């Protein structure tokens, strides 16, 4: 399998000039200013600019094209690699042992307070401009027009793996039993479409490292987290600019007993 090597070990800031004007505008549209470029352009850091960019909250919300606009906020620093999320994902979505819909990366850190490691969950970014859907010759993978989830229609998949090559985030694997590519769909068929509010991974996460929510709703917890003024938020992305819907931010403090009750969903 091709490994794109998003090397989180060596995050050295690079020249901001490599970000195209078009991409800057694309992020500004959703109220985020690009503040840093890392890892050969695969990672961008952004901060919220909502208060300056928009006259009203409503103008701003219009920039998220889906309703609901599902998104996940990864609070880096809280993940403890307990891998309950991986287990829940595998059980909920019948993911075989050789496959994955989400993984945890390890980053070795040495800083003054004596931390040694940081764990970083990764999954499909449900890109607004998804290269995988463009690469698919049979439209077996497509972006749902209502909720923006990038889905698979297994019957149509011929197993050519073009989407695996096109995806910059290694979010896809070939599922031999289904004879089709499989990937994260935010638990659409297994949970969300049945009325559950959270994906299996964010539901079981004991630390609140995975906040799942709806970016089209300014009162939603995920929305509020990403759009705190001046708070730095990251996205993983390739040079082409896929407009990912998984956001990353630093979290240094957890209150586990509160966070477990994300959004009153439990």
């Amino acid at each position, binding site marked *: 399998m091709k*490994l794109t*090597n*998003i*090397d*989180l*070990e060596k995050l050295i800031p690079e020249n901001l000039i490599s970000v195209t004007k078009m991409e800057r505008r694309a992020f500004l549209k959703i109220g985020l200013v690009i503040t840093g470029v890392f890892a050969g352009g695969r990672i961008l850091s952004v901060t919220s600019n909502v208060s300056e960019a928009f006259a009203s909250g409503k103008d701003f919300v219009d920039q998220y094209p889906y309703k609901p606009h599902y998104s996940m906020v990864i609070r880096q*620093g*809280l*993940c*403890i*690699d*307990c*891998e*309950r999320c991986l287990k829940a994902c595998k059980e909920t979505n019948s993911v075989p042992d050789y496959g994955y819909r989400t*993984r*945890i*990366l*390890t*980053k*070795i850190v040495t800083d003054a*307070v*004596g*931390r*040694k*490691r*940081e*764990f970083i969950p990764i999954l499909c970014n449900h890109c607004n401009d998804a290269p995988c859907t463009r690469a698919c010759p049979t439209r077996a993978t497509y972006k749902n027009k209502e909720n923006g989830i990038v889905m698979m229609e297994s019957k149509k998949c011929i197993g050519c793996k073009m989407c695996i090559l096109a995806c910059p985030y290694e979010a896809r694997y070939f599922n031999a039993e289904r004879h089709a590519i499989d990937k994260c769909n935010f638990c659409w068929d297994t949970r969300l479409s049945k009325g559950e509010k959270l994906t299996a991974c964010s539901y079981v996460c*004991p*630390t609140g490292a995975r906040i799942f929510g709806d970016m089209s709703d300014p009162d939603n917890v995920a929305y509020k987290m990403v759009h705190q003024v001046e708070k730095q938020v990251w996205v993983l992305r390739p040079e082409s600019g896929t407009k990912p819907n998984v956001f990353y931010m630093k979290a*240094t*403090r*957890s*209150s*586990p*007993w509160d966070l477990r009750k994300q959004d009153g969903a439990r």
Partner: protein
Amino acid sequence: MKRMALLLLASLLAASFLFGSLVAFAEDEEEHGGDIIYTKPLKAVIFSHKAHTEDIGLECDWCHEETFEMEALHMQENTDFTMDSLCNENYCGTCHNGDISFSTTTQCARCHIGVKGYNDLVRQGKLEPAEGEEIPEEQKPGH
């Protein structure tokens, strides 16, 4: 005091002998209990006796037996061995309360080594896997 310390040392020795496979890999186990790897309620948390005794100079009886029993991993069987309870200044939280030492609500990955950390230790031969447990092949860094 000296007698007391000797006694403690003796029981530590006994403990490290008895629970040799659990107190996995300290180089000088005769001085302290080595590294303890907790796997419940989740995998995995490291406690370093060396860091707490040799490096910062705590005495055995500051924690044993009032906060932690001598028997390694004993408290894993308690239903209140959870973060909620730690945050209420029980177990590790007795000192890790943000006052005596860093709080258990911060710096999670300083003690939590995760499933990956646990697997690494088993692969390095520093820890016995649980019975029937399969350890997957190593992932490349960053993957």
